[in-house]
């Protein structure tokens, strides 16, 4: 069984630019989650998509957005990049069973904003 795959593995952008990160979930999983892991800050919940709809959102500004496609893959967009957006962005998938489901993570996209 193929795991969660994320691309690209590394991304370097300059302040003010836009970044697009992609995620393919485990086959059969309908839920995709995005987390930000900044140095020293732990994993912060960004977004949850299930069956193509945004179901929940963390405390992040609107310039963080995304979508889920009919094949359940997902895209995270970050507009107007700021230096503090530099972090590891982790995507996870699950078969949602209510509450918080056990998550299967990809290896992340390392975003560096200069």
């Amino acid at each position: 069984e193929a795991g969660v795959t994320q691309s690209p593995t590394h991304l370097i952008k300059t302040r003010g630019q836009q970044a697009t990160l992609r995620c393919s979930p485990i086959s059969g999983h309908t839920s995709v989650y995005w987390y930000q892991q900044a140095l020293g800050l732990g994993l912060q919940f960004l977004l949850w998509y299930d069956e193509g709809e945004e179901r929940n959102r963390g405390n992040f500004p609107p310039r963080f957005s995304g979508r889920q496609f009919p094949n359940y893959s997902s895209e995270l967009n970050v507009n107007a990049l700021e230096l503090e957006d530099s972090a590891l962005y982790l995507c996870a998938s699950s078969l949602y069973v209510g509450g918080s489901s056990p998550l299967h993570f990809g290896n992340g996209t390392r975003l560096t904003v200069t």
Partner: protein
Amino acid sequence: TQLLEQSPQFLSIQEGENLTVYCNSSSVFSSLQWYRQEPGEGPVLLVTVVTGGEVKKLKRLTFQFGDARKDSSLHITAAQPGDTGLYLCAGGARGNAGKSTFGDGTTLTVKP
């Protein structure tokens, strides 16, 4: 805001020693997961606990969920260098579907 506090933040021990990592909150969680993350990789799920007082064993790892479902512990017996990594607890609460709250993690180093 539901918070999970993990302790200790850092732990460095010799191979063969035992250790316990704690995950505490003032909030009740419907379930709690433990993950291990190695450098350059995403977290990997170790276990899910759901019932208050539940104890689960995974080889040398023992996980316990508090009776009130507000805290959890991870005990490792006879630690090995391969246990080195960042251990994260995460919980989900009622009324906040799909969101897992993560603790800041315990960085464990096991020296040979």
